[in-house]
Structure formats: C-alpha cells, structure tokens
C-alpha cells in the first residue's frame, strides 16, 4: 500500500482560508468526513474478506460484523475452493491469457504509435481519429462476425485447437482478439506520449545522423519506459479482469477458462448458498490487487492517458 506521499505543506496551507478557528474546525470536520467516507467505501470489500474467513454455517446466520464476538476464523473456505473447483487451473489459465494478450498489442501498438506521432503520411490524422473512435465501440458489436469467422472459416474452436495437441493453441483466438481490442488504447496512449517528447531531440538526432530505427530503439523507447509500463499494467489488468471476451472466444471449459469465467460459473451454478464464493472471489482478486497496489503510480498514469508530463 502506498504510504501517504508528500503534498507540499505550502500547497496544503494555500488551500485553507485565513482565520485559525475556522481553519481548525474545518480540519476536524474534514478529517472526519474523509476518513468516514473512506471507511464506508472499503466496507463492502472488508465484509467479503471477513466472510471468507468465517465458518460457513455462521455466515448464513449472522452478519460478518459479528466476526470478533466471539472470534471466528477459519481457512476452510479457501482449502475447499482450491480442492473442489478448478480454481488453481483457472489461476494459471488467467496468466496464459493475460500475458500474451498484453505483449502483443503493446509491441504492435508501440511501432504504430511512433508512426502516428512522428511520421507524415496521407490521412494520418483521419486514421488516428478513427482509431480513437473505435475505442468506444461496444465489443459486442464485433463478436458474432469474428466468432463466425473463427468457427466457420478457420475452424478454430476450442476443441479443434485442443485436439492439435500444441499446448497453448486454444488461447490463440483469444490473444488475437484481445490484441485487436487493445490496440486502439495502446496506440492512443503511446502516440500521445511520443508526440509530447521534445521535437528538437529528434532534430538533433537527425543532424547527428541517426536513422529511424536508431531514433526508435535508442531514443524513444528508453524515454518511454513509464508510458509503456503504464500501458502494460493497464492492459494486463484489463485482460485479467475481463469476463465477456474470454467467455465468447474461449468459453468455460476448465482447461482453458480463466479465473473470471470460472468465478462467474460458480456464481450462477452455486449461487449465494455456497461457502466457496467468497474465497473464490478473493482468490481472483489477489493478483490484480498486488499489481495494482505495488504499481499504482503507473496504473494511474495509464488512466490519465499519456497526458501526464513526466
């Protein structure tokens, strides 16, 4: 968890009106409100977390807030879910889905972004605009034709691909789909960042005799590490947490289903009357939470979409 970072005292002070009494009063009320809101906000998550450690029988008869009186604590739910469902496999599958689905659009996007940022070609601006426009297209609009192409033209069904015996092949349709879906954002974020690099850096490189490849690999990429990191994290989390695209292109078979699909299955098949749901839910949250909390800075940068300077 990131520790409270530095807010310059002068900036904080500048935001308070003069008059020490009103200042003091504001401070108290302010802190109460802020902390209250935050606690209230985390309550749902805490509720579930606590529930996952309570014996199942108790969760059906009393609220999670009674957990301390008397102390109720058990790992049973977690051991059960790991044993009964395919959670472990799904956990692994999520990595098999998320990592390539991040690597592919980021690399393709980086090359394209450089062209959009620093090369001139006809209709460049229009194509870029179209790309940005595609960001808002509901993915649902694309499923049927792509799926039908996969199944009818390429015969890429999960069972067919599994039958080839090549490990990992069943996920290829999903990787490519995520790459296609993830490219608009990747290109948008990186192109904006590349464009913001000072132009005289490139002019100087031009005079120094650097060609396109040198400029890209030796100047742009090293300087773009923060932006690329943001993109990688953003895309990774997006894919890891995605339910719909995985559902459509890979389905729920345990050998291929990632955590989200697996979890959704649990919800519908077992419903609320199950001790597995809470622990499964938290199990699925572990990786994103770790990534998020340790690399939050980059994630936020991703949200601010390349417009953050430095």
């Amino acid at each position: 968890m990131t520790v409270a970072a530095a807010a310059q005292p002068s900036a904080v002070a500048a935001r308070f009106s003069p008059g020490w009494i009103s200042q003091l009063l504001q401070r108290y009320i302010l802190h109460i409100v802020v902390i209250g809101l935050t606690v209230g906000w985390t309550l749902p998550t805490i509720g579930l977390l606590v529930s996952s450690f309570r014996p199942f029988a108790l969760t059906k008869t009393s609220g999670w807030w009674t957990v301390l009186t008397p102390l109720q604590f058990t790992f049973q739910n977690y051991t059960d879910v790991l044993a009964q469902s395919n959670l472990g496999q799904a956990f692994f599958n999520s990595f098999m889905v998320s990592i390539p689905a991040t690597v592919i659009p980021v690399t393709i996007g980086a090359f394209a972004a450089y062209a959009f940022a620093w090369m001139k070609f006809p209709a460049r601006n229009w194509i870029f605009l179209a790309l940005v426009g595609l960001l808002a297209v509901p993915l649902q609009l694309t499923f049927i034709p792509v799926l039908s192409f996969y199944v009818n033209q390429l015969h890429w069904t999960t069972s067919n691909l599994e039958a080839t015996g090549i490990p990992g092949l069943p996920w290829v349709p999903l990787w490519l789909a995520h790459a296609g879906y993830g490219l608009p954002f990747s290109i948008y974020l990186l192109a904006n960042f590349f464009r913001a690099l000072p132009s005289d850096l490139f002019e100087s490189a031009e005079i120094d005799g650097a060609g396109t490849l040198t400029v890209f690999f030796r100047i742009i990429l090293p300087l773009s590490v923060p932006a690329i990191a943001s993109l990688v994290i953003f895309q990774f989390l997006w894919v890891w947490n995605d339910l719909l695209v995985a559902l459509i292109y890979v389905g729920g078979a345990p050998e291929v289903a990632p955590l989200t699909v697996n979890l959704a299955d649990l919800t519908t098949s077992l419903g609320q009357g199950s001790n597995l749901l809470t622990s499964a839910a938290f199990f699925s949250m572990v990786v994103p939470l770790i990534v998020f909390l340790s690399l939050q800075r980059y994630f936020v940068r991703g949200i601010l979409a390349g417009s953050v300077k430095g």
Partner: protein
Amino acid sequence: MSSVTYDHVVKRYTADVTVVKDLNVDIKDKEFMVLVGPSGCGKSTALRMLAGLETITEGQIRIGDRVVNNVAAKDRDIAMVFQSYALYPHMSVFDNMAFPLQMAHMKKDEIDRRVKNASKILGLDPFLKRKPRALSGGQRQRVALGRAIVRSPKVFLLDEPLSNLDAKLRGQTRIELQKLHRELETTFIYVTHDQVEAMTMGDRIAIMNAGILQQVGTPGDVYDHPANLFVAGFIGTPTMNFVPVTTTDSTAKASGFEARLPQSVPAGKRTLGFRPEALTDKPSADGSTLNMKVDVVERLGSDQYLYGQVGSDQVTARVDPRMKVAPGDTAQLGLDTRSIHLFDAETEAAFF
C-alpha cells in the same frame, strides 16, 4: 573551405505565407556571423534551412562550393546547438557527446579521444558520467556545445543558445563562446533576437525583419551607418530618436527645433534620426539646439538619461551625469549634427 552562401533563398509555406524572402548573404570562412532580428523575422528558419531541418523553397544554399539544397542534414558536415540544448535525457554526458560519432560509425578509441578533448575544452570532465537532469543550465549548454564540437564540423549553428540562461550566466557564456570561436577557428552562425548579443559577439551582423534582410555589416558599420529606419531603431540602447521633419536643402525642420544637415537633400517629408548620445548639455557648433521639457530623469551613476518632449516629439537624451536636471525643467541640449541620420519618410531608406 567552410564559407556559407545564401543565394536568393526563399522559404514559402503557403501562397500567402513567405517566411524568408530572397535572402542573400555571404558568410566568410571562420567568421562569427550573427543573424539578428525580432521574433518571426525568419532568422531561425534561415538557420534551419542551412541545417537541413527545413526544405528550401527557392534559391541555393552553399557550404563552401557545395550546393546542399538536397543533401541530408547528417551529410552536411554541420553541427547545431539548440535553444533548449536537446540533450538526450537518458544518456550520460559522455554518451550524449559520443552519440553523433557513433552514428558516423567512428572507431571507439577515436570517439573516446574526441569526447575527452571536447570535455577538456569545456570543463566538463567532472560531469561525464552524469545525466542531464543532474546538471545546471550552464553545464547543460556546455554539453550541447560539446556534442557539436566533437564532430569537428565545417560550420557551427547556434539557435539562441543563451536565452535560457540567467543574466549573469549569459554575460559569462558570451565571453566563453567568443573565446571558443577563436580557439576552434571555424565558421559560427549564431541566431538571436538580442541586439546586445549581436553587437558584442559578431564579426558581422545580418539584420532581418519580416523575412527580408535589412543590412549586413560589422557591428560598427551597422551602428554608425544604418541602412534604414528599422536597423537604426533595432540596434542600440536606448533606441535612436526619430523625429518627423521637413527638409529643404540642408535644413531639417522639426516641430521643436531646426537642424543643419551635413549634406544637401531634396525637399520633402523625412525622418530625422539621432541617438541619445548625440545630445549634450553644451550648445551645438552650428546652432542646432533642442529645448526639451523634461518628464523623467534616470540616473545610473555612469550615465544620465533624460526623457521628455521637444516641440511635439518625444526625445531621449544621454547626458553627462553631472548635469543638474529635474523633472519639469526645460533643458537646452545641443545636437551633434555629425552623427545624425536622415531617412525617407516612405521607403525608410537612409540618406545618410
């Protein structure tokens, strides 16, 4: 030979946007030439055309005898120092300076030698391993210079290199640049909007305005014999006084005084120009005397400036600091008619 010639060079963006109009300048080998003018006058564009960063719409640019219009920037054998230095932030000082040599596929020990040499000249030895963000503005500028020096180019191009430095550093760096020029014995082409830099640093100055070259000459030439009203008003601080006059033969009649002209001119409406230092508190030999109603007095210790009105014209005078004047007084000032200029009211060209 590393002379540079602009031969009828034009830079046009669209039909109605011509940034450089018919530029003709001959820059001599080893000369320190300053291109100076207000913002937007085309000086930077002229420099960038020479660098190869802008295409040339019409005309020729030659380096030595070689026409470089269609030669790529990296093959022109020039080096450029940018206003913002354009240092590669992720590379050390050494790597920044080595980069152009790596691009030229130079051998590693040759690169090493050149970088260390440049570093020595510029006093960068203690900083070679640092990254640009760990350097001060002045140090960064020297790295930018170093990156240019290592290439041993035929021509150095400098685009407003001092504008990002504070006043004190600017003064020091001006001197260092002039020393560097003498040491390297290479052509320097220097762009600035600051006429003080131009006057102090240039062997010759080329003054531009609105894309048109106004005058080329040594600082002395340009100061004492401005070719037109613009040059006269651009060079020199405080600015030259301009007073509308009507001339008849050798007399110029202003609203508040009459001046004797050193030569005879056709009759008509003209502009008379004289610098503040052409006014003294001693009466003039030929009777050209100005009665100034003084508005503001500025005492700088070594100088005294009077701002006021002569007739209906605003005039600035630089007088002896010991002269006793107060705002509201009427001062009698003599005009040294040997150093006056006369400009045509329409064409603004100088008669003398």
